[in-house]
């Protein structure tokens, strides 16, 4: 079947509802602040909306995208001295 050209708002809401716990887990593990989280998640959601028809595994893409976007925080966490 031809992939849907664009997502509906409901598609995006459903995707986010499903992934919220996993995204939160990722952000906690990398110590991303809620303010940065808002920016990064918003960015990733807009990107997936534009790529909707080209990407088959939307959940996988969104998680991977956020994993990439938060890698700099992983570095910061590792470099912090252990108290």
């Amino acid at each position, binding site marked *: *079947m*031809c*992939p849907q*050209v*664009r997502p509906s*708002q409901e598609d*995006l*809401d459903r995707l*986010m509802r499903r992934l*919220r*716990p996993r*995204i*939160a*887990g990722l*952000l*906690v593990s990398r110590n991303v602040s*809620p*303010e940065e*989280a*808002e*920016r990064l*998640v*918003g*960015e990733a*959601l*807009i*990107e997936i*909306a*534009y*790529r909707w028809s*080209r*990407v*088959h*595994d939307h959940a*996988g*893409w969104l998680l*991977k*995208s956020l994993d*990439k*976007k938060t890698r700099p925080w992983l570095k910061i966490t590792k470099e912090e001295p252990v108290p």
Partner: protein
Amino acid sequence: MSPMHDDRRSDYTPAFDRAEEGVRRRFARHVEELDAAASLALDLLAAPEAGRGELLRQPRFHALGLCDLLLERCREAWTEEPAWAVELGALAVAVADRLDTIHYGDGLVEDARARAWAHLANACRIGSDLRRAEEALASAWEHHRKAGEDAFTEAEILSFEGSLRNSQGQFEEAIRLFDHALAIYREGRDRHREGRTLIKKGTALGHGGRLKEAIRVTRRGLASIDAAEEPYLEVVARHNLIFYLHESGESREALTVLERSRRLYTVLGEPLHRARLRWVEGKIFLDLGRLEEAEASLTEIRAIFLERGIAFDAALVSLDLAMVHARRGNTGEVQRLAAEMLPIFESRDVRSEALAALVLLRGAVDTERVSLEILEHLSGQLRRA
């Protein structure tokens, strides 16, 4: 997960709510933009070539939706109208260059630029401008790195680069690039694109002379593609499969697959697809010694290529036809066809081995001693050229 982690997880709830709200607002604009893209494309493509630069300066044309639509049109055009596909690819690059990074964000803009350059590269390759294709690909990779390296864009560029290496005769490098793209599509569970890439890999294997592997990989590709998503792809893949079966000496199996595919060619194939089917059919008949049927198919297809001005392919068909006559011992007709096709082959840049075979044929034409062995030798060399 510790209770502390659970608490911290819930800290993100308001952030997620705000992010989703922001997306809702931007998404409405995105939908409006996609709706407007079709009419923008219509205005842009209806304008005379000289006037398009002026239009592109207007901010309403600086839209990601328009860029995506031009890329879609470029893909639709590249098989049948490669020159038009190059123009569409260049227009997509021009639109992508003007996208506002504040409105879309750096990642999306750079990704659009990478895809536009990659499409232009592939259109140039199909149009036989390999140098421009190489330059465009370099730009695609540069923008892809700046974009943050989206996996699907990467797979697309890898696949286009694989096709370029294939056209340049670098078959092993092409196979390596296709394998890399395949791994990305498998990870992304994109079965259709995985199938399409397998079919492309089959082409590189076939060109490289690894016919058995080409047959196996093309069959896997055919099993993976969604024909509804890209109907012509199935025609192309079946054609390749018939060709590799024939080339590997399995002419009976090739004929069986051909018979099963005939209806598909009639329903979906373009006139040139059907013509090429008739050509491979003629070659199979020749191999099976069914000379009358071979002559009928090849004579018909030669006339079609000549009528359309596809001189090189017409000369290749003449070579097959000359082999039919050589098998019958009809030396006069062999001599006539050889003399007719020779200047067309000589006008092309071919590899040294094929050039040597042409010199041999030239000598045989001049002394009126063209034989089946000389024709078969030339046919083999031209296939590899």
